[in-house]
């Protein structure tokens, strides 16, 4: 298995596979994002969105679409939630046996790169919505990249 990268370059694309309930046309819904860590496939490793989808279907057969975001598009600064909480977004490279392209979009505190997330539901929803809107759907039934 390849070694874990300490840093994922800004020009890498992250693919997120989706079931029908989590997107509509080109819109990715907040339910597609998990504050505990949103698993994605790195394009630089898996090469094509169809490869990511084929792999995802072995685990989640109902996944049918692929959305993409580049690392550079993710928020670089702090996200402030309603209660005044400050959060950052980062991507953790997490190659796995059988899925070397695996990585996760994660949240943390500005003063620490440790993975954590808000305790308040509305703050979690804001973070999910903020990330979901950055994705765009590139593969879906009857529509290919």
């Amino acid at each position: 298995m390849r070694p874990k990268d300490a840093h994922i370059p800004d020009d890498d694309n992250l693919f997120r596979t989706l079931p029908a309930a989590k997107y509509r046309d080109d819109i990715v819904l907040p339910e597609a994002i998990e504050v505990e860590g949103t698993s994605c496939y790195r394009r630089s490793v898996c090469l094509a969105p169809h490869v990511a989808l084929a792999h995802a279907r072995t685990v989640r057969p109902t996944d049918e679409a692929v959305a993409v975001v580049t690392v550079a598009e993710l928020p670089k600064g702090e996200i402030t939630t309603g209660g005044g909480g400050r959060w950052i977004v980062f991507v953790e490279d997490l190659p796995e046996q059988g899925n070397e392209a695996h990585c996760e979009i994660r949240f943390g505190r500005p003063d620490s790169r440790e993975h954590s997330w808000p305790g308040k539901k509305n703050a979690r929803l804001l973070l999910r919505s903020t990330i979901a809107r950055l994705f765009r759907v590139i593969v879906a039934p009857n529509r290919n990249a």
Partner: protein
Amino acid sequence: MSTGLVSATSTPTPEVPEAFVPEVRRSMWKYFGEIKWVRANTPELHDWWEHHNLLAHNTAVVLLAQYDVVLSNVWDLSTHATSLGRRHQWWEQRNVLIHNNLMLSNVWEPPSALPWASTLEQRNVFLLVNETFPSSAQKCFDFTFAEPTRESPAAVAANRRFEKTYTDLSQLRSAEGNPQAFEGARIVAERVLVRLGQAGFVPERVVAAPDDEIAFYFFPTDSGGQPRRYVRFGCSLDGLVITLEDRDALQPEMLESGIEPEEIDQAIANAEGFLKSR
């Protein structure tokens, strides 16, 4: 006169004693929040029912006069619903109460004197009245019959979408293993769905969301007919959160609301401009 749901005989409705009118009027308006008058002849009643049955949550139906005729019509419609496989909770789900005993023993009573009157508070009340209703009784209720109107295809489609969304909502399961919180969210979501429907908005999608939340989605379109945004009504025991997502905005806008009916109505009003396609 029988006060049961079904009477075998038809008894002419007595005139209302003139001196009694003010008290009845005062009582009626005290207890009844929203009153719809519906002429109870069969075809018109059928039209009315077809239109309203989907939105009839938290509704009381009060039948006045000649109730044996009216009830037989309603009963037929109920039987029709039964044949559609919704027998068991058809009435209960919609919390429909049927009352035909505004009159007791041919003596007019103010609703406040009747044991069921307090159950009508906070409900939408539909009064089904047939044409033989005595003219003097009209003084009590200030009603005039509105001519029934055929629903437009758009309205019929909206009703069908409402029914589908309601069915989808009833079938959702928690993805997070907290059934109690999820069932609470479902109760809130039902209330939100009905208030949305009454305001003329039917969600396009309902999903079980993280944090034991149930979310309704609307996808308004831009001038080119393309969905560019969504409006999300997130329902949970903690409250209602409306997310207004517009790609042209820097970040999603979130509006928080309580779950009381008037709070939900205000929240819908606040989101109304966004809900309508441009």
